[in-house]
């Protein structure tokens, strides 16, 4: 019996000493430990920029199916038609024809990308603050957060608003567009001057002071859309702050080294030049996302002949838009139309059908603004993306002056842009001139939807769309998935 007791004793001893079931972590960092270090706080800021480059379905621009595609295809400067060979889903064409449903994947992707970006920015603000980081860094994180909210109210109107990740999700209300606008403005006023004045180098692809003011100018420029009360003078003031940063237009002249024949297209090459670029998005194929805009437009054989990889036969510019370009506009060189020297391809400018039965394979004018820069592969190229550049600023300055009833002051700004494109100077300038010039200069750069709404052209008929588009379409619907996940949300009118 003694023996038995001994065995039981030993057994229970072994049992009691082995009851620890805490988790071991070997190959990851626990959140609190990671961010507690200065390097962690710094990285929290880098992570926010990582959101902007992102990747497929979750990025600002470069890859497909997120912010850039949503805001571009809903406008009139580009579209991907369904092909009568069965290629391409209808999402892009339905955005263009404004027949999409609130369940459209791109809308959901954009919403999710923006809110995960807000989350990251909140992390960065909180961690940099608690790490007592340099004020410029904290300001940078706050400006980034404001920028995501700006993109949110621009697309969706009234949206959930919070700045602290420890807020209980059930207590976060859908906040008025104007309220968030006021937050953005006050956040910018408080922080932009704290940002670094350095251009390029360590601040390439980051919010420096000039990018900050450019962002502020964009917010004021669209104040009328967001709040009903325009703020043209504030916009012009902000523009002038940017201009004081010493930017100039990059040379545009003929250049045989450029694949499209003009130095102008350096702006959309591997690295955005510091002279004109105010805020760039760094992209490097398969390292930091990638840029698909060139390869997505080319057809298979033409892509193979030009860059060694099958083109996707996707994006085109419709003839209505293309035909507005002057024949001598150097910016028209970005389009491929008619018989091509390589790949045995002829791009037909007339598109027979967008949705059913779809366009013939070679229908549509192609855009090579982002002529693939190395490294390139079948899924994209390494062109950086200019989010804001000086030409945009000049046209904003022109617009503000016209809006403020001072068109003569607007002339030099718009003519500078036209001169580079080898177009004759205008002698008078109207809002329509500015609107059209923005179209020519900024085509395929993701500005078109915002411009169309601000200039009051979003509801116009467009090629393949014969009935006017309802005003309610000026806001995208709150994605169905977000509505299902959060009963506190109300759908935008008209959906």
């Amino acid at each position, binding site marked *: *019996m003694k023996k*038995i007791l001994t*065995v039981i004793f030993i*057994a*229970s001893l072994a049992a009691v000493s082995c009851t*620890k*079931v805490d*988790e*071991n*972590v070997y190959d*990851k*960092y626990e959140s609190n430990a*990671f961010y507690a270090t200065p390097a*962690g706080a710094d*990285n929290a800021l*880098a992570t926010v920029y*990582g959101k902007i480059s992102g*990747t*497929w379905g979750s*990025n600002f621009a470069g890859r497909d199916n997120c912010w850039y595609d949503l805001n571009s295809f809903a406008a009139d400067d580009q579209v991907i038609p369904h092909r*009568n*060979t*069965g*290629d391409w889903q209808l999402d892009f064409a339905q955005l263009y024809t404004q027949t*999409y*449903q609130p*369940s459209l994947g791109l809308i959901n992707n954009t919403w999710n990308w923006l*809110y995960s970006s807000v*989350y990251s920015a909140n*992390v960065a603000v909180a961690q940099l603050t608690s790490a007592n980081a340099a004020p410029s860094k904290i300001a940078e994180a706050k400006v980034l957060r404001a920028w995501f909210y700006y993109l949110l109210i621009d697309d969706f109107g009234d949206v*959930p608003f*919070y700045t602290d990740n*420890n*807020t*209980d*999700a*059930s207590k*976060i209300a859908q906040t008025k567009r104007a309220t968030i606008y006021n937050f953005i403005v006050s956040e910018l006023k408080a922080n932009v001057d704290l940002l670094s004045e350095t251009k390029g180098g360590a601040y*390439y*692809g980051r919010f420096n002071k000039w990018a900050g003011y450019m962002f502020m100018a964009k917010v004021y420029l669209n104040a009328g859309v967001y709040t009903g009360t325009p703020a043209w003078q504030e916009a012009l003031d902000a523009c002038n702050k940017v201009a004081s940063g010493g930017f100039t237009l990059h040379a545009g002249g003929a250049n045989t080294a450029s694949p499209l024949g003009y130095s102008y297209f350096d702006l959309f090459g591997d690295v955005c030049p510091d002279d004109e670029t105010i805020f760039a998005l*760094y992209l490097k194929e*398969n*390292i930091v996302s990638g840029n698909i805009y060139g390869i997505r437009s080319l057809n298979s*054989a033409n892509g*193979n002949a030009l860059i060694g*990889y*099958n083109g996707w*036969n996707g994006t085109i510019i419709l003839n209505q838009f293309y035909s507005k370009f002057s024949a001598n506009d150097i910016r028209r060189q970005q389009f491929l139309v008619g018989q091509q020297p390589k790949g045995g391809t002829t791009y037909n400018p007339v598109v027979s059908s967008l949705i059913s*039965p*779809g366009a013939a394979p070679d229908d549509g004018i192609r855009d090579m603004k982002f002529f693939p820069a190395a*490294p390139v*592969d*079948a*899924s994209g190229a390494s062109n950086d993306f200019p989010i804001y550049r000086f030409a945009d600023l000049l046209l904003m300055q022109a617009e503000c002056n016209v809006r403020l009833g001072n068109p003569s002051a607007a002339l030099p700004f718009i003519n500078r842009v036209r001169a580079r494109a080898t177009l004759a100077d205008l002698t008078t300038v109207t809002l329509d001139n500015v609107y059209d010039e923005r179209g020519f200069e900024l085509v395929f750069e993701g500005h078109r939807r915002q411009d169309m709404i601000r200039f009051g052209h979003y509801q116009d008929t467009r090629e393949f769309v014969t009935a006017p588009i309802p005003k309610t379409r000026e806001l995208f619907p709150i994605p*169905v998935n977000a509505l*299902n*996940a*959060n*009963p506190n*949300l109300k759908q935008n009118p008209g959906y």
Partner: protein
Amino acid sequence: MKKIYLYKYGLAMLFLMCAIHSFAQNTFTGKVLDETKQPLVGATVRSKEGSQSTVTDVNGVFKLVNAAAGQITVTITFVGYDVTEQVLSPGINATIQLKPSSRNLNDVVVVGYGTARKSDLTGSVSNVTSKDLNPGPITNPLQQLEGKAAGVDITQSGSEPGTAPTVRIRGITSLQGGNDPLVVVDGVQGNMDLFNQVPPSEIASVDILKDASATAIYGSRGAPGVIIVTTKKSAAGKTSVEYTENSSLDVIAKKLQFLDAAQWTQEANSLGVDVSANHGSNTDWYNLLTRNGYTQNHTLAFGGGANGFNYRASLTAINQSGTVINSKFSNYIGRITATQKALDDKLTLTMNLNSGTNYYTYSPTGVGNAAFTSNLITQAYVARPTDPVYNTNGNYYVDPNVFQYSNPYAVAQTVSNNNQINNLFGSLRADLEIYKGLSVGWFGSWRKIDSNNGYYAPAASTLTSAVSYNGQAHINNAHTDEKLMDINLGYKRDFGVNHLDAVLVYEWQQQTYNGSYSAARGFINDIATYNALQLGTLANAQTGDVSSYKNDRSLISFLGRVNYSYNNRYLLTASFRRDGSTVFGANNKWGNFPSASLAWRIDQEDFMKSQRLFSNLKFRVGYGVTGNQQGLFPQNSIPLVGQNPTSPTVYFGGALISNYAPSQNANPDLKWETKKQTNIGVDFGFFGDRLTGTVDAFTSNTDNLLYNYTVPLIGQFLTNSIIANVGSLQNRGLELTLSYDVIRGKDTRLTLAGNGTLLKNKVLSLGGNIQGFDVATDYVSLGSNAYLQVGKPVGSYRILQHLGKDANNAETYVTQNVNGVPDLSDRSADRADAGQSLPKYTYAFTPSFTYKNFDASMVWRGSGGNKIYNGVRQQFSILQYIGKSNVLQSAIPLGIESAQYNSDLWLEDGDYVRWQNLSIGYRFNLTKVKYVNALRLSVTGQNLALITKYKGLDPELVGSNLSGGDYGIYPRTRTFSVGLNVIFK
């Protein structure tokens, strides 16, 4: 040898002493033999008069001392033999020969941490012994169980070499991937891949624990059921050498009918496809990519022993070549198990060593382009019959005008996709009898799995990714280390008519996982394939090309079970287990899993003694709580920061740096799923067990359902989903097993047997409160238009209804929307309810026939009540694609040129009946041959017929695929095999 002599003399002395004692008491002796007149060791001999009992010794001899003056009656019991009664007279040495049991009620069933007699079972357990296992070309032991047990659904989609079937015991009870049963092989616990280490012909029995009262002893791992495999052991004192072989020819059972070159040309012309798409060849791509396969299975087993020692060893080789070219599988397993007794036979040591290697050459998957990616063989449908295989220069043909054209024959011939898995496990069990039925035991096992995968796609493969970088290679090494240790205390004793059997266990287990992955691109030639990654071009390196990981999980358990029976009539089993696991959240580290069950053996009652109708009647009822933690992985509950997997690098501060991101929502409340199951069952036998059967009815509710619940991306939620325990799921079922001996003669026996299962599955709730936020989860898409929907079965279809065709021959749909654009959102009113992806019933019919040395058996099995979304038919029925792809012959009469959405046009009934197995064998008794004892020859056909209305390749593709979508499977084979079994002297 010396010891045996001593033993004999000692025994003789004992007899002598007994003789002296016989003045006071009588001594009854005897010898128990088996059907071949060999001594039976360890048979229990129990006297009816004085309730003494003893067991036979190594010579089959027993002795009982009884006060009775005259004769006594003893019952002799031995596993696998009929209980025999014998009248003994004092002083006369009786010889008693036992007959192998015709009914297996006394069979021992392994119930987890112990064994029980089948007749004592109170829970629902299916027991399949080696003689009932499916014969034929078996590459995975699960194939031997197909159709053999009610409520145990074993399915396999396609016959790719080395792919394992899927097992679902009593349906889908979890959503987060945790429906695979726990596998226990000779005490070693593991997941389904443990079957890779079990030689099919070395299985002695398989016990499948189905209801919660049986599985609760496995606590937080028991909910999906438990499969316990017991391998063959050598009988003590016998030497045996046995060789088993099976060779089969595997042919493709069914092909889909696609256009040939002439038909394609005609159709392309009539649809106005540009002539440039017609390359004028006549290629049968499917035929080019397929062949007849073969499967070989060899096992040499031998064993023997003496002096309280015995061992069994075996070597197995399984080789399979697939029906798609360049796909094959080999499995080599060596095992040895040995038992040694010591300390006057009170200590039993059992060791087990098992080592095996699996080689897989998989047919590549993920082939094609962005529009249609599939496994390799399904790409054979994409290739136009008019495309040549080679260019005139001898290179593989590609059409530059087709986006990302891939040549499937080039892929098959040039891509290397090899996987090697080395398995090793060892275990040691020590059992010590301490005092009058009290025993203590220790068990430890250690299992190691090393897997090494190499992949190389050269530019010649025509795959876009490989062409881009002139060759692409990667290797993937993974290491798993699983340790288990338990200490147990057992007590087994009879007190008069009371029988008590109790066990207490402490168990500790830990699994460690680590591994690494490396990739390289750009090789100047294809000689070294994936074996020299350093030869790749450094400039082509991408983020994610190098990675490694390590994590672990531990489970600590305290458990106990009591079996009590009164007078062999009333049986009670109660168990309790307490589990603590590292993968549970900080607030829920420990869980309790109790169970209880009762059984009443009505046939043992006095009032049943006089009737002749029932030979067995037992009523069972049980309830238990089990858990499931398979869906939880290490570090699921804690907030982590890791490299952002989708964008691992960020440009910041003028440099490329690693991009970190919070990767997971914290959930300190995370825990196991809780499954509560009630089972009521009846076991019966009529007419002297000519008709036997079992009926079980059960209801199980899975609460705290683990799922990746969708949460809004605001506030504390950093991603759109959080793993949490919120919803609940219900399964109700009815199982019936019947067996009837139509002929039960001395030489002839014909048995008709079968089983059937009805299953009803329902999502009870999906929403709930997660960290203060009320999630209203519902209508969760599972893919292929199948949904999780409250009040409906898992995988209920909600799909657009096909309306017809418009003027452009585009498919039209029933929509609420005036502009004809259907709303595809999950809760859309445009989606109509259209059945479920899970079968409502499964059944099997397993007749067998023996006449003298001849035997024959069949397995027919089927299931139904489900729908399948035929994605292949959809993809290849749209005529618009003909310019760049082939289409089905059936697409022509259908005449749909374009279809933008999924509709119920492609949703088909999934009912089927399969003639799974026919086997005929003959046993030659070769007692006169010098070295051979017996020889059995058999022929087996598998998958001989399939009766179904399903238009795809094979309707058997449910398994782990809750959405019931068919996007192309590896062909299912029909096999014809010859088997040989030789027992040497």
